[in-house]
């Protein structure tokens, strides 16, 4: 049995992942903004076989609250083996362009709050000499594009931060995983029309559980995004700046 903390537990990807862990009999601690939704999900996970399910209401952007949340998690499920950071929002890029305040708020939510949590959890895992920290980044963080660069910048920051953290903790028995999903059919993307590149949360979830089990460093989900992003990363900026992506 693993003791697993999930931040942003009401997100579609996090919920699908939690179901797989529940089926394995793991103990789960769910963190999210809405108490009612956390309770509905907690009940579901108990039926599916979770050894224990606790929950905690917190806005991940409320950085001073992180410490108390972590204490509550350890107390409730008796320690921590895995932490999945899955919260986030999909900013309206156009609205961000017109508002400094909105841009910074989105970077706060998708970037800084994750850096804060990863710092805290990195310390925690380093002290105990083991643990898996898995963070949902995005393919959008691999290269800035006009359609989505506020989100991309925040996710890119998270990706770089985790690389450094991984490098530092590699010899301390701590596993750091960066998860880069492509397009996922979730409530966050309900407004988009869906083509062949879109994946279901359940398939992303299987990839996340597998990557944590195998202690992978970085995964693209589904895997074909590795190839797409390899190409996108390698287009010369001179050419890239003219593309409408």
């Amino acid at each position: 049995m693993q003791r697993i903390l999930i931040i942003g537990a009401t997100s579609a990807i996090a919920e699908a992942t939690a179901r797989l862990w529940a089926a394995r009999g793991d103990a789960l601690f769910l963190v999210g903004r809405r108490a009612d939704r956390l309770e509905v999900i907690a009940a579901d996970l108990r039926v599916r076989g979770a050894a224990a399910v606790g929950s905690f209401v917190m806005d991940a952007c409320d950085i001073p609250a992180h410490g108390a949340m972590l204490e509550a998690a350890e107390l409730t499920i008796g320690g921590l083996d895995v932490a999945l950071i899955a919260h986030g929002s999909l900013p309206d890029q156009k609205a961000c362009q017109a508002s400094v305040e909105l841009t910074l708020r989105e970077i706060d939510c998708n970037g800084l709050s994750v850096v804060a949590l990863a710092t805290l959890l990195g310390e925690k895992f380093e002290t105990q000499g083991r643990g898996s920290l898995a963070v949902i980044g995005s393919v959008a963080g691999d290269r800035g594009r006009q359609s989505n660069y506020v989100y991309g910048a925040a996710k890119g920051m998270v990706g770089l931060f985790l690389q450094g953290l991984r490098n530092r903790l590699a010899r301390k028995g701590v596993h750091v995983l960066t998860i880069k999903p492509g397009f996922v059919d979730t409530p966050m993307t309900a407004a988009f029309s869906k083509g062949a590149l879109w994946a279901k949360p359940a398939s992303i979830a299987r990839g996340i559980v597998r990557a944590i089990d195998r202690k992978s460093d970085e995964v693209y989900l589904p895997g074909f995004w590795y190839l797409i992003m390899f190409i996108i990363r390698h287009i010369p900026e001179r050419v890239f700046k003219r593309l409408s992506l």
Partner: protein
Amino acid sequence: MTLRSWGRLPGDAAAYERWWAERAAALPELDGSLLAYGNGRSYGDVCLNGGATLLHTRGLDRFIAFDEASGVLRCEAGVLLSEILDVFVPRGWFLPVTPGTRFITVGGAIANDVHGKNHHGAGTFGCHVRRFELLRSDGSRRLCSPGENADWFAATIGGLGLTGLITWVEMELKRIAGVGMAIENYRFNGLDEFFSRNATAEASHEYTVAWIDCLAATPRGIFVAGDHAAAGDLADVPGKPGSLPLTLPPDWPFSLVNGASLRVFNQAYYHRPLPAQAVVHYEPFFYPLDAVAHWNRLYGRQAFYQYQFVLPMVARTALDDILRFIAASGQGSFLAVLKTFGHLTSPGLLSFPMPGVTLALDFPNRGAPTLALFERLDAMVGAAGGRLYAAKDARMSGEFFRRSTPRLSEFMPYIDPKFSSGFARRVLP
């Protein structure tokens, strides 16, 4: 994307689609009517609402509570039967009643009051529902059970989604010893042999069903009886077949089902090597077609109709006439399924089964000749006191439906004024 039902017949697309995944939330404010869309496995237009709104309920897929002692499960209405099986079969529980596909939602199972191979002993799905919550467009929520709001309970079971939205359901699972099914196969020739086999088998087996070749001059087929195997038999069970990569692209252009292919298929199916007794995994026993994703695409762009009727047992001779008529028409299909219904009465006012015998057949859509055939069949079914299964229907006349649905007038007052469907507009007064 245009939502279709399983028959894939062209029809009016829904003008709006909304997702609804929180059971405590209010229904969206809408102009025009709405209808819950579960997993789209009914064949005709009971799950469609052309020109108006479909409410996607698959996101309503959470379990709420399970009592390990009694097997009572409470879950949201968008949970698939397959999801229940995945979680509960390993713990020794099974669905009390299951139709021939496991990819339907619990809400859809209630709305169509589905039946299975154990109807003779267990009745319909609705017979095993203890209670549910019904959300109406006026925002009211009713707990419905045989003891509370019993009238709403009866109207909603088999109510084709027209009485409001089912948000969650409490139902009974049943104990099984393992994943194996002990089955017996018999080839039969003629309906007399079917009925005598069936009478014997129903007395001693939980599940019975027959496949018949309705192209043959004398109806012949394979009768299967089965029971959940004892745990000790499990070692012999072949592994779960896994999800096969068998599929067809969505725009498969032409039908692979025609007179020649049907004859070959039916011959081969009838004569295939058949063990008299075997222990098999429950999946191929209950869900043989689920192994082929999108088998409905076999029929190509022209798509297909399914025709399922029930006749009271006294009208047995009518069944001979109907089968002879179908054989002579040359339009018959493969996988015609024959099953007798028992005497357990569903609580549902519009529930399809009645004590008697039911036959389900696929017909490739050849346009006017196919529709003309159905008119003739309707006349024979109607004259024999039978009726058609709404979940499979895409074309019966309103007049036929109203005449063959004895409790329709009791049902009508329970229809939610904001809920409608293509089927409702086609057949209701």
